[in-house]
């Protein structure tokens, strides 16, 4: 029996792996100590567990233990990286480079910095969603202190040429931050080989708990310093005060340890399921379009526009599948996805997009079910769609004089 709704929204969050859960449990109860308590056994046990976890996280991305700073999640990591570096190096310059399709945690930090007098360049991306290292290079000026470019995009899964961007930044002496929340565990990441100075990651995207994240902060070549955004007891080398979330951190560490073990095989497996989903959809439906890079894309990611069918109504029609949509109607702002807009997806098609993301617990039976459900629902809704009818009659909807309206 299939468990419903079938979960295909692993980009949004993932269930905690049972092994992770088991590892965490004692740290809620018997090993409840504060990792900052240096005077007794409870504190030492907690601290040792935190340090083990720190090591596991560091190993997954090719860093050293001391370069990992724990946070409340990737939003905080992005905020700390961008804001903290900007304020630290403000005397050196006030220019920051980022891309138009970064996560809001980066974009909104940049907007806030603009109000503090920083100048931000928002680089465009190509039709697949990639930032060109050449564009980064061209954007760098004497005043540039930081570039923040994501490893892989959360909506379309496109992977950026991170190593090449890292090289460009290194040559120019610009600090390079990458939001690797979606990339970790789904693509090889090595902060040394890729020239990364700051890297954000999150536990709940990799089968760890919610409410814990980390920021990698390079300690040499160069040693990166940050102005903290949370003040207090001076935890985490002064960069992030606050009592550590020990059970969360323990789970985060375990999640990374598991990934290190299973990642190669898991990538292959997810890619197989993802391709099976896409093949099923595109062979049975006409006028479906893949959003994102055809190859340089996260192995679990599939963003599709189903022409003539609005995304929210499609999701309603397949309530027993948990996915997300780039449609305006699902957002509070009624604006379609800024990511799809940035890669040049026409607005009418942006309204029809659905993001599927598979993961560790997805299986073939689920994919077969989803393919059938998607095909049936799209066909049903196309029968209901005036746009589909017009397309069948050979009318190009782009040439129609629409009345437009309230938005």
């Amino acid at each position: 029996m299939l468990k419903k709704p079938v979960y295909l929204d692993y980009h949004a969050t993932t269930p905690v792996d049972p092994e992770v859960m088991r590892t965490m449990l004692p740290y809620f109860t018997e090993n409840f100590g504060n990792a900052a308590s240096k005077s007794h056994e409870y504190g030492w046990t907690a601290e040792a567990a935190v340090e083990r976890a720190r090591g596991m996280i560091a190993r997954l991305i090719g860093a050293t233990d001391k370069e990992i700073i724990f946070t409340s999640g990737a939003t905080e990591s992005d905020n700390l990286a961008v804001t903290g570096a900007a304020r630290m190096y403000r005397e050196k310059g006030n220019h920051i480079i980022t891309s138009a399709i970064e996560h809001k945690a980066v974009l909104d930090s940049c907007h806030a910095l603009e109000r503090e007098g920083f100048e931000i360049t928002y680089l465009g991306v190509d039709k697949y969603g990639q930032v060109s290292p050449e564009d980064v290079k061209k954007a760098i000026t004497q005043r540039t202190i930081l570039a923040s470019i994501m490893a892989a995009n959360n909506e379309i899964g496109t992977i950026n040429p991170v190593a090449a961007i890292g090289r460009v930044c290194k040559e120019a002496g610009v600090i390079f931050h990458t939001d690797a929340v979606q990339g970790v565990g789904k693509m090889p990441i090595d902060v040394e080989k890729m020239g990364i100075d700051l890297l954000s990651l999150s536990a709940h995207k990799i089968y760890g708990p919610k409410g814990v994240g980390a920021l990698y902060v390079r300690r040499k070549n160069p040693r990166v310093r940050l102005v903290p955004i949370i003040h207090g007891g001076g935890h985490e080398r002064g960069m992030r005060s606050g009592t550590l979330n020990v059970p969360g951190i323990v789970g985060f560490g375990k999640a990374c340890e598991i990934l290190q073990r299973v990642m190669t095989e898991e990538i292959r497996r997810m890619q197989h399921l993802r391709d099976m989903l896409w093949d099923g959809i595109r062979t049975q439906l006409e006028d479906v379009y893949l959003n994102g890079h055809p190859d340089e894309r996260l192995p679990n990611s599939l963003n599709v526009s189903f022409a003539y069918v609005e995304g929210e109504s499609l999701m309603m029609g397949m309530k027993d599948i948990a996915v997300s949509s780039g449609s305006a109607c699902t957002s509070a702002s009624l604006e379609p996805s800024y990511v799809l807009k940035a890669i040049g997806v026409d607005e009418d098609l942006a309204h029809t997009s659905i993001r599927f993301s598979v993961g560790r617990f997805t299986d073939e039976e689920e994919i077969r079910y989803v393919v059938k459900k998607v095909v049936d629902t799209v066909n049903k809704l196309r029968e209901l769609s005036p746009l589909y009818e017009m397309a069948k009659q050979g009318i190009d909807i782009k040439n129609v004089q629409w009345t437009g309206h309230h938005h």
Partner: protein
Amino acid sequence: MYSKKLMDICENPSNVGTLDKDSPDVGTGMVGSPECGDVMKLQIMIDRATRVIKDVKFKTFGCGSAIASTSLMTDWVKGKSIEDALKFTNAEVVKELELPAIKIHCSILAEDALRAAVEDYYKKNPDMRPAVSALGG
């Protein structure tokens, strides 16, 4: 966020389909735009003698509330005279479907579609158009 009634209508909308837009008895209204994410096409077939809407069909590209709003409106106007049908307002849809504030524009669009269909019918049949004062009433 949606009421059960809205979900049920989306599952099984009534009066989906197409009437012959070239027929003199049929008025067609198409409102919205694909860029905005909603397009509604509404067609009404009028009985000349009684001015009654004998048949009504719609197709909607849009979110669940847009589909449900149009479906509900077609149920409402079917069998009514043009004049009675035009008494329909989006407020009825909002109430009946318990539309959240952010979706009220969907119900307005349904009302616009009806008015556009009636207008199209009058264009084809100028003799059926009531005197201005009657419309204003």
